[in-house]
């Protein structure tokens, strides 16, 4: 078993599916000989050829749009959007076409594509490179929205995304690309796309997060444990469709919930989880649900980005708030 960081795990998953399924094609900017700006596709064009690892002209709209045409005609395109802020031109195609081609044609045509994009702040990137657009996509019927938080989950979830018969938005936290390594068996075993992952069991509070913030959340759980507060940590991983059952079951035991995400607060996906808790779990709650999120500001440039990102301290403080009077 190899020790892989998250970007290497992505690379292994792509290679595995390219070798397994001749319908899989990759397209995007600089993904060929250059191996992608983050090296997700390093070595793949050399191994699988330029016809299947396609360096496209520089146009995100057509990357998404041509991927739809490929998918409708039987290919399994995995399109890479180079930087998170460049994903917005794809909205027209993702929302108007990819998400609804199956529905519009009553299943006659479908759109089994994966749109991969880096996401999130924390690597001192230039402007428009630190976006967290997951809630924008999670609002769209017909999509799946997936964000891994570790190399092994990135590997298994990306395999599942490529094998899924419907469009999947696969957001990769750049902050995690090279943050740590993990044993990842390149065994072709996919992870389920419809479940949350409980990373840590606890009885006092449920911490719900996804993507890069899972790490601050786990660190916060360590800090809380030292204070005698046992936190359960759930990595949502697949935001849409949402496995609310796992969250409700956990909160049913702990009675407290803190939701942590990097994206801006208003209309963030934490609001969706909190609303579901209010609808279906209110009477199990011992304290109001707390959200620890990015501010409702533009994600700032490098000098302030760690002031923007929710800190371990903010998460711990939010947990303490749920325990006030307990």
């Amino acid at each position: 078993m190899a020790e892989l960081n998250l970007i290497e795990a992505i690379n292994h998953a792509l290679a595995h599916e390219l070798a397994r399924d001749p319908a899989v094609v990759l397209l995007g900017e600089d993904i060929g000989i250059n191996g992608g700006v983050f090296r997700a596709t390093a070595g793949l064009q050399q191994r699988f050829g330029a016809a299947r690892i396609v360096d496209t002209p520089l146009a995100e709209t057509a990357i998404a749009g041509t991927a739809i045409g490929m998918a409708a005609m039987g290919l399994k395109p995995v399109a890479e959007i180079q930087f998170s802020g460049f994903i917005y031109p794809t909205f027209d195609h993702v929302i108007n076409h990819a998400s609804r081609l199956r529905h519009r044609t009553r299943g006659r045509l479908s759109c089994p594509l994966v749109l991969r994009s880096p996401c999130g702040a924390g690597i001192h990137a230039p402007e428009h490179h630190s976006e967290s657009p997951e809630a924008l996509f999670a609002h769209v019927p017909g999509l799946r929205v997936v964000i891994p938080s570790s190399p092994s989950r990135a590997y298994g979830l990306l395999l599942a995304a490529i094998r899924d018969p419907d469009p999947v938005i696969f957001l990769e936290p750049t902050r995690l690309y090279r943050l740590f390594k993990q044993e990842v068996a390149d065994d072709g075993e996919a992870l389920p796309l419809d479940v949350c992952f409980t990373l840590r069991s606890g009885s006092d509070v449920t911490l719900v997060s996804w993507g890069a913030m899972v790490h601050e959340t786990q660190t916060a759980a360590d800090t809380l444990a030292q204070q005698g507060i046992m936190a359960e940590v759930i990595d949502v991983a697949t935001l849409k469709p949402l496995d609310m059952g796992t969250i409700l079951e956990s909160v049913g035991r702990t009675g407290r919930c803190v939701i942590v995400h990097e994206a801006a607060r208003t209309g963030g996906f934490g609001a969706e989880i909190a609303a579901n808790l209010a609808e279906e779990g209110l009477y199990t709650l011992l304290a109001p649900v707390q959200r620890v999120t990015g501010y409702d500001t533009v994600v700032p440039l490098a000098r302030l980005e760690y002031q923007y990102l929710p800190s371990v301290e903010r998460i711990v403080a939010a947990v303490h708030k749920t325990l006030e009077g307990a």
Partner: protein
Amino acid sequence: MTIIGRFQIDYTRFLDPRGEATQPLPDFALDPEKLIPLYRAMVLTRTFDTKAIALQRTGKLGTFASALGQEAIGVGVAAAMGAEDVLVPSYRDHAAQLMRGVTMAESLLYWGGDERGSDFAGPRDDFPICVPIATQVCHAAGAAYAFQLRQEARVAVCFLGDGGTSKGDFYEALNFGAVWKAPLVVVVNNNQWAISVPRSMQSAAQTLAQKAIAAGIEGCQVDGNDIVAVHHAARQAIEKARSGGGPSLIEALSYRLGDHTTADDASRYRDPEVVQEHWTFEPVVRLRNYLVQLNAWDPQREEQLVRECNEAVNAAVETYLATPPPTPGAMFDHLYRTLPAALHEQRDMALRLAPQQGGGHG
């Protein structure tokens, strides 16, 4: 100074508005057996078009986009396609769709507000009508890439309007298709109007065909009301694409004789007298006049054709009106291949709250 590139755009017309040859005709145009099916398809399209508008006016159909005056484009292009090719239409392309084997009942179902109208029983790989302007050109380029990668001798044929050529999607798709040398044919139905905005305000370019030049592919302009010119250009472009020659752009000059859709009133923004003048150039009479010159058509055949078209359209209308609306569960069917558990409760609610069936259309 050194000139490093020279470009020209050719305009082709074979039949003038009176149906008389302006230059030596291609072989197919000398054979009435090849032209009569095209004429029949144009008349059927117009009969269907007229009926669809009437259905909308009487509350039996939703908004409908008429192809009045532009029948030669869809018929002439689709007749040049092989069954294995794929049509990627816009919303004014029922002439081509009917040629491809989409049924009139399916088309009516679509415009009547039923997704099943896009579940074509005939051309299973043809794309559904595309409403967001010019986005379909990207899909066609991607489809063409799929054919190329699998080494299938198939061509993606895409339609858009003159307004659509202002969209980035159009340029991006031409550019992708050209770089890939993909089997793609893009047909611009230049009917001179994008709802109320005339061609002169759409682009300062002398022709829309010349937009191909920047992509590095061939572009040509044809008289879109001359089905011989349309069909000839389409055959050449499709054959070129099929044999590995890459994409082509065809600008077919026509005129939108009807409103943009049934929700539009073109008299608000254009002079009805000018529209009337354009009836002089319309494609159906032009081909009929030519067939009469060939002694291949007469009033008896015309009468019989009109009767047959009316019968076929009326039968399709009956099928459409007799089709009960889908159950509310259809909203959830085909959203995903397998409906996620997270949506079961919403589907159950929609089914539970559904009114009793039996209303039907109108």
